[in-house]
């Protein structure tokens, strides 16, 4: 290969900065050689690409006290003397993580050092020196250039496979685990079974890591995105990815822009619905026109021109050079004039959603009371209906996903089923009912439910009221007998504990 084609002084400078960033010990000698203008040969990727085995707990939507385990294998990339980079998928509920180098041989016990759902990144390490011996830290590109081809590395049956994949486009997309939009490199390929953190390379450097695969395409977390997140993490100031919490539409209808009073050439995108911040001085409001964000002009498609990646959707801007909590200037057209507001980028938090797309950090929550089983309404619960859950899970439960959380109802609790017992006779067929009130108290969480059950309504009964709709509206349970019945049910059905939340 012609090394001069692949290395420029600028690149060398950037690599130097990268080394300073990630720190490390003896491996830097190797990396320094790679970074020299004299350009070394193509790295021995087998010394950087490793296998990661993750055993993790799965949720049983209909028996949340059961958590069967499953194991998967994916890839990781040695990026420092003691760190393996991989995607965060499957790690939030892991029970065991192991690493293997060279595609074969011994598995080393490992531990998760850090993971982040929104960026879908994780760092793994192991205390076994034998694992690190002979490993070589890979270099992440600072900017991923568009180009016709990349190489895709993966271990297949103990052999390192390096296959060509075609550049398709840079795009902006929600993460696989999160909902904060970020840059994504999309490559076209006929290879099957991708999306297991395979590494995409070009010119001896890492261009990204796969996060999902479809039969014809593959989504790749670009190295530049990974570098930025890791740098913030290492600097101790990673506040998480942010997002725009307002909704917008393209300004491609000139008549609409004119109706909104815009003067001059058609430009900008139209805000449909404001986010949580209702102060117009701090956030875009409905019918504002987004003209400029963080200094980038917004066109009628809702795109801006990125200096590195060309035209990208404006949704990339909260994460392009900033993180959650930072203030980003937004120039708007409002009431016949331009106005610039300081918009604080909201943190992408699942708990802000009426139906959280993910629940991490705790096992599935539930309450069993007199045989009635209650769970929070979450997307993981809906996914209990299988791969085609969007088709088969109860429509009404699903539809709450399209509704906003309210201050007085930030989340929902569902009576997901009934474990038959004499106390709940007559209710054995009831299921999937969203709780409105228990004993007169409005219920949003399992904690509120448990609290409400401490104060039965008059007449010695617990009164459960459900959301108005097509199903049962209310049921009563005997209050004095509830605790004994719960104990009986828990024993009878082999449930470890009556509550977990």
């Amino acid at each position, binding site marked *: 290969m012609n090394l001069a084609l692949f290395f420029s002084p600028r690149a060398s400078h950037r690599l130097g900065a990268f080394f300073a960033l990630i720190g490390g010990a003896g491996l830097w000698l190797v990396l320094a050689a790679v970074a020299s203008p004299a350009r070394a040969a193509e790295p021995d990727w087998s010394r950087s690409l490793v296998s990661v085995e993750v055993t993790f707990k799965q949720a049983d939507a209909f028996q949340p006290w059961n958590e069967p385990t499953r194991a998967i294998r994916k890839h990781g990339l040695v990026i420092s003397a003691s760190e393996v980079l991989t995607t965060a998928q499957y790690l939030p509920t892991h029970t065991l993580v192991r690493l293997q180098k060279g595609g074969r041989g011994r598995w080393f016990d490992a531990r998760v050092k850090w993971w982040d759902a929104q960026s879908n990144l994780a760092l793994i390490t192991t205390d076994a020196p034998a694992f690190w011996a002979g490993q070589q830290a890979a270099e992440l590109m600072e900017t991923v250039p568009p180009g016709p081809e990349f190489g895709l590395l993966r271990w297949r049956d103990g052999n390192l496979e390096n296959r060509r994949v075609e550049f398709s486009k840079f795009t902006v997309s929600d993460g696989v685990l999160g909902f904060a939009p970020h840059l994504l490199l999309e490559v076209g390929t006929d290879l099957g079974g991708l999306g297991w953190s395979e590494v995409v390379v070009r010119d001896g450097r890492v261009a990204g890591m796969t996060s999902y695969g479809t039969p014809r395409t593959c989504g790749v977390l670009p190295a530049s995105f990974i570098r930025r997140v890791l740098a913030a993490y290492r600097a101790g100031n990673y506040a998480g990815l942010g997002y725009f919490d307002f909704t917008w539409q393209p300004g491609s209808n000139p008549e609409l822009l004119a109706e909104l009073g815009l003067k001059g050439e058609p430009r900008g995108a139209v805000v449909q619905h404001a986010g949580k911040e209702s102060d117009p001085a701090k956030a875009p409001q409905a019918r504002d026109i987004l003209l400029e964000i963080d200094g980038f002009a917004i066109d009628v498609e809702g795109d801006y021109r990125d200096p590195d990646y060309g035209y990208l959707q404006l949704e990339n801007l909260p994460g392009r050079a900033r993180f959650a909590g930072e203030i980003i200037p937004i120039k708007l057209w409002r009431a016949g004039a331009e106005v610039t507001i300081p918009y604080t980028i909201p943190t992408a938090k699942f708990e802000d959603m009426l139906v959280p797309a993910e629940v991490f950090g705790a096992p599935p929550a539930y309450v069993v009371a007199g045989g009635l089983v209650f769970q929070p309404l979450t997307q993981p619960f809906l996914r209990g209906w299988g791969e085609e859950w*969007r088709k088969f*899970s109860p429509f009404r439960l699903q539809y709450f996903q*399209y509704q906003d959380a309210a201050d007085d109802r930030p989340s929902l609790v569902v009576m997901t089923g009934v474990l038959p017992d004499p106390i709940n006779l007559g209710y054995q067929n009831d*299921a999937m009912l969203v709780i409105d009130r228990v004993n007169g108290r409005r219920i949003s969480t399992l904690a509120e439910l448990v609290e409400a059950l401490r104060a039965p309504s008059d007449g010695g009964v617990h009164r459960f009221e459900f959301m108005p709709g097509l199903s049962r509206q209310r049921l009563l349970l005997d209050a004095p007998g509830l605790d004994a019945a719960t104990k009986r049910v828990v024993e009878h059905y082999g449930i470890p504990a009556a509550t977990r939340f």
Partner: protein
Amino acid sequence: MAFIGLDESPARGGEKSRDFLRFSYVTALRPIAASVPVCRMKKSVGCVPWRGCKRIAWAGLLALAWGLGVSPMRAQLLAPGPDAARAVAAPAPVAQAIPLTAAEAEAALPSERAVVQILTSSQEPVYDAPWRFESVRRSTGTGFVIEGGRILTNAHVVAWAKQILVRRYQDPRLLPARVVFVGHDCDLALLQLEDPQGLADVTPLVLGELPPVRSTVVTAGYPAGGEQMSFTRGVVSRIEVQTYAHPGNRALLAVQTDAAINPGNSGGPVLQNDKVVGVAFQGIPGLQNAGFFIPPEIVRHFLRDVEDGRYDGFPLAGVTLEPLQNPAYRRHLGLPDDGRGARVDFLRADGSAIKVLRPDDVLLEADGLEVGSDGMVPYRGNRVTAGIAFQRPQSGESLRVKIWRDGAPLELDLPVTAYTGDRLAGRQYDAPPRYYIHAGLVFTPLSANYLDTVGRLGRDPAWEGFAKLLYELYHRPAENFASARAEPVVLAGVLPHPVNADLGVRGRVLVNRINGVRIERLEDVKRAFADNPNARHLLEFEGPEEGPLEAIDRAAASAAHADILRTYGIVSDQRL
């Protein structure tokens, strides 16, 4: 999900007269031959893609939940879905007919002359292009002569009919007929020959009583598989309230039998001791040897309804009953644990029952039928949902109910009326869809029929836009009646023209406001455009909060209107 026993097989040859028949249809209606698969879909509701079936299932649930009391289907429908969906999608089995004995065939002879074949040419509108109609389709069904020289058949046999021909038993003539009364909610229709003398020599069949379970019945009709009248024998398997597939959102008493009821049998009599004990009408794919017929109670209700020259329909009280079997609940209401009484759980805001009943009233007796704690009533040796008691009166009549309220019994008269508030949520027939077109924007009411067009596009039912329309049509009225629109309107599509080419919203979306006017019904669309004095029309979609926005130049829209209609061959810009 039920299928409808209507035969839309391609014309079959054989006798010379049949050849003529086939020739006349095939030549006149050439597209039919090319669209046989489509026709098959129509003949069998159960064969439509599962999305449609699922919607019907929801509609059926609504019927049970809103008006017919205890809903034993609920648990089934709310249970994990894949199995239910697979059951719906399964192909209809062909039941094995049991040949009649010679004695039975001899006994059946008097009936044969009263049983007729009905040949229908029908044409349905296109709900997302509501000024257009589909190709003409041909189908056959069965009917039978009743008193007054009238022919009773299923409503679905003659729905959307452009021409109805009757063929009598072993008679070569094709006798033109017309619909006199049709009850789409109960899937029954009364026909009359254009020449009343055409049936003068036929002895009408007489209605019998509800046949007991396990008793033998005989079906007569013209099902697929041959030209001649076919008789099959079976037993009455069970008697229950079932969702009627034709309207999709009504559940009435129905009888299940293992007598073969196949496409083409629809509208045919089910006989017992020379009397009609039912009208064959639907089956359930996936269930072997299970056909359904409409019992005499429903037929008599229909016939009595039309005596005044108008069909009103079956009443719907808008009350949902729940079983009252839980001891604590019974104690709380002051009721002994004696197995009596079902609890009023929900009252529809626009139903008639809400004027008389309250939540947590306990229904002890309805129309003389004792209501059990399971929400069922004993009915001629069966237990069926108490909802049938509310369906027995005619619209406008009352039924006597005995309830338990505030610890004491109480007797009340509950007026019931035919309910049309959920018309759009059920399948509509015979009346072409309303629409209004302005500047190439096509507006039409959101309806079950309209949603079918979304399904035909192969849209995933989980598609957010589709989900929002489903919610608006089926769920919002029950959950929040005050925020529901009387007739939700959708932008069905946009007829491309320079005046509307920049619009990002291209259809299949609920219309929220136009020029600030909240769109409650289609007429509001016309008014909102006509009354706008501003330079542009502003359209807001979805809602109730802010959704997609579009604007269109008012003067340019008016100027382009006629050109757009001409370009797309639309004769009228409205059917209101």
